[in-house]
């Protein structure tokens, strides 16, 4: 009876928004670590350079998904604190702005000049902002967490859909988003071996192990909590426990997208866990690992967007 | 008048043969509505009369005996053919006929 209103554009948007949040999060983290180890600068830089694009693309998809895309500005004529979408659109626009300024602060002088010329913008904009990086990271950090969480809150706030209606969804989306950010960096670093620095990979692996573990320990209570909840929620879990999304959830998301990359990461980092030894670094495994994490993140959003809309009180 | 009565008598004897008689049901209905209905409607001086008012036999004998005593004789109002038509119409739709209808509708 309930029909699917939000389709792949929304799945993509939720995924891409989370990705940017994850990238910014890693960048801010790396910027902090850079104080101790300058090697982290590269990590901070690359993630800063990547961060704005997914969310910009995602927001465009969101606007495209609107029935009246040219009316999207109406969103910014209102602020409705009860509406996750209203809060979210403000968050998105502010976060995107911050990521852009932050990116600007990471660009070398000549790149800035070239860019301004090409965009026919006044050269006076060509300011050195590198000193503002910590400030921007500090301001942007809560926004990145906000954007990552909001994509889950958007769904979790809907009482009408028992599959969604718990804030565990928001946490799941948060850790999944941050983990996806790590995965993008692992991918980029592994695909371009000359950029590779084992310490950074190690950092990303360790961070991702932490995030995936957290995510797993939210998925678990989500299932348990659902089983202990009211009938409608129990019924809605049937969608993944013995329904159209069972394979997608257990195999594609939980198996391939969560546990397998976790195993790969643990396997890779085992030597470094108990000694100063370097991690294994199998580039192919790293690429596979990153791809699986991203795939898992995407599946998570696909499953939740679709299954959630079908779930209903009967 | 005698010829008319004789004709009606024959019809009385064999009701089934009415179609063979020369009366026209359709025209009878017309003359009935045109002439008789002036007085024979509810509230008018003749009182309501429809084919259902009498049985087939009653209608036939009515015309044989030339009733209509309280008003002008029927023969003064219409000619023989017209009366035959009316009779045909009334008998065909009388109360105990095979096609009992109020106004031939």
């Amino acid at each position, binding site marked *: 009876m309930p029909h699917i209103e939000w389709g792949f554009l929304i799945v993509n948007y939720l995924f891409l928004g989370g990705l940017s949040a994850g990238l910014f999060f890693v960048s801010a983290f790396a910027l902090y670590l850079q104080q101790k180890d300058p090697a982290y600068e590269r990590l901070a830089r690359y993630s800063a350079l990547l961060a704005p694009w997914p969310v910009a693309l995602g927001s465009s998809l969101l606007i495209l998904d609107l029935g009246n895309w040219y009316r999207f500005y109406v969103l910014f004529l209102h602020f409705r604190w009860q509406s996750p979408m209203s809060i979210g659109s403000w968050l998105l626009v502010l976060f995107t702005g911050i990521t852009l300024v932050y990116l600007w602060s990471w660009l070398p002088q000549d790149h800035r000049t070239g860019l301004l010329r090409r965009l026919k913008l006044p050269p006076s904009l060509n300011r050195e902002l590198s000193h503002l990086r910590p400030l921007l990271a500090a301001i942007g950090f809560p926004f990145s967490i906000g954007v990552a969480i909001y994509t889950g809150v958007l769904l979790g706030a809907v009482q009408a859909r028992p599959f969604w209606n718990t804030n565990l969804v928001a946490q799941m989306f948060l850790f999944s988003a941050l983990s996806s950010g790590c995965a993008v960096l692992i991918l980029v670093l592994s695909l371009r071996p000359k950029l590779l620095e084992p310490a950074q990979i190690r950092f990303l692996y360790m961070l991702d192990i932490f995030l995936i573990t957290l995510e797993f320990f939210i998925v678990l209570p989500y299932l348990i909590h659902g089983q202990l909840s009211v009938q409608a929620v129990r019924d809605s879990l049937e969608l993944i426990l013995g329904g159209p999304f069972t394979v997608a959830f257990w195999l594609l998301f939980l198996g391939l997208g969560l546990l397998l990359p976790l195993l790969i990461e643990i396997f890779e980092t085992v030597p470094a866990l108990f000694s100063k030894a370097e991690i294994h670094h199998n580039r192919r495994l790293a690429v596979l690992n990153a791809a699986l994490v991203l795939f898992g993140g995407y599946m998570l959003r696909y499953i939740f967007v679709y299954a959630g809309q079908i779930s209903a009180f009967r | 008048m005698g010829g008319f009565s004789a004709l009606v008598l024959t019809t009385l004897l064999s009701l089934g043969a009415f179609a063979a008689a020369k009366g*026209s049901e*359709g025209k009878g209905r*017309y*003359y009935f509505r045109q002439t008789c209905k002036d007085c024979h*409607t509810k509230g008018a001086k003749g009182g309501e009369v429809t084919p259902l008012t009498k049985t087939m036999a009653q209608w036939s004998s009515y015309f044989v005996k030339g009733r209509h005593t309280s008003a002008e004789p029927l023969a003064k109002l219409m000619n023989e053919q017209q009366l035959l038509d009316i009779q045909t119409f009334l008998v065909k739709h009388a109360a*105990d006929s095979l*096609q*009992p209808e*109020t*106004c031939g509708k």
Partner: protein
Amino acid sequence: MIRKLDPNPKNPKSRGMLCARGNAGLLQVYDPKRIKKPLIRAGARGEGKWREVSWDEAFDYTANKLKEIKLKHGPQGVLWSSTEAFAEVFFKNLGLAFGSPNIVRHPTLCLASVNLAYSVTFGAVPSFDLQNANYVIMAGANRFESFITPDTMDLIDSTMNRKTRLVYLDPRFTVTAAKADEWYPIKPGSDLAFILALVHVIIAEGRHDKEFVKTYCQGFDQLAEHVKKYSPEWAGNETEIAAANIVRIAREFSDAAPRALFYSGRRSSWYRNDFQMRRAQAILNAIVGNWDKQGGVVPNSKIALGEFLYLPWDDPEAPRIDEMDKNFPLAAKSDGAYLKLRENVLAANPYPVKGWMICKQDPLSALPDQSKTMRMVEQMDFIATIDIQMSDTAWYADVVLPESTYLERQDPVEVLAGIWPVVVMRQPVVKPVHDTKPCLDIVQGIAKRLDLGMYFDYTIDQWNEAAVKELPLDAPMDYLRNHGVYTPPGGPNYGATLNPDHRFVTQSGKIEIFSDRLKEFGHDPLPVYQPPEQPPAGSFRMLVGRKAYFTHANSSSNPWLLDFAPENFLWINPKSASHAGIADGELVEVSSSAGSAKLRARLTEHIRPDCVSMLHGFGKRSQWLTRAYNRGGNDAAVLENGWDGVSGNAAMHETFVKVRKA
């Protein structure tokens, strides 16, 4: 531009309600697939090639063809067929003035058996006072689903509020079954056994209204003797309704009398003994004394309308082609008997009929055994159809004369008879959107060219003025123009015939339980039960059903309604379907000796395993109706030819079909 249709709040018959198709009626006016101008066929019949012509040309063409046929075959060589409509009288009169005895109307496809059964018994066609009844037995007449009128709606209210007990018999679990207090999936064809057993119990237990029977009825003693053999145990076997239930229903029914009735109305054209079954219903109603009482069976009251005194024409000389006098001497002669008529036309017996004038009717969809109707179409030299849309029959016609829809035309004033009759006048709400005409104009156009103009020398206003002249109103025409309806004061009429001196319009003047006249014409004077033939193994009895979304076969292309049922399905019980290896939604072919239809199967518990059923009005042949063409299956193609011997009523539920995957 009509935005929305609202019912006339002053009309007590509508009481503010409109059903789905009432609400969707405005699309008839704005249907892009309407017939917008008169059409003359340009290609072969059914090829769909048409030439748009002026009305003058269409009239000339039609009149010339009619003259040709008259010259060759006499006026009886043209058949005039029409269906219930306010303006039907004009069309019928044109046929009569033309000199043809062959006027055929819809009752023998509808309720001729009920009308005749009650006429023979009570000398009147009654209404059933569902509004006030406390106990209603209804068989097959699916009043909550197939035909939605205000009296039904009161029944819903009183049934649901436990004021009325509704016992419903139907091989299908219809909406009415769902709402009834008791539903029995009676074995098809055994209804008469059920009724006779009710009569048996009521008489055996002395529960009949003795005073009423003595005063008003004749032949009760013969009935008492006659039904002795029809015990509830016997009927239990025949009907598959437990004897205990039959006894209980008989007791409850007679206890509730006179506010108890066996409903005989509507959709009554089932079996070859339909008349006798309806007679039994009438007799059951008679012996409990519910006649002309509140909550019982009440003779229709009429309001006498005046008539415009148009000139009379000569009675037709030839006998009717369906030879009503010989075949159905008791039936309403002026309505004809459609299926017998078709037989005789096909056999050119006793004379050829080569022209067919059709008004608002779709014989190809309406008559069982479509291939026979098709043959009748093919053997005609000329066919003209007056319709608002390109029906299946219009599609095969030579001339199509587009009538204005009911929202665009002035119709004759009409009495809606009933327990509380009203006078209604339909007035146009918009000017004709296309080059269409009302029926009278079309009739006059043809009549003039046939030199019959003098018989139709009046306007619709003159006609209506003559009609309303006698109403007790100061300015009746103005009143009806302003209000659309005239409701006589005083409310429902009961008891006008309940006077020992009253002469019932029967042969004896009494209520005829035993009918000498039936005996005289060689029929059973009391209903005699004969067990129905049962479908052979692997076959099913085909039942036809209707949904009130659609008006017979002619609104199934209305987009607002089509939404609810874009195609019809073959209802089949899952048990039977699994034997035949048929899955839900699968395309199947239903076939009988008459022909076949293809449609999708709907596996449903809502039907007896020995029956299948489909909705009427689908599987259109007219390609003009793009939304309805070839959607679902056409019941008319499958149903076999056959009729009730007394009334000539079509027997729609006597066809055995085979079902296989298509």
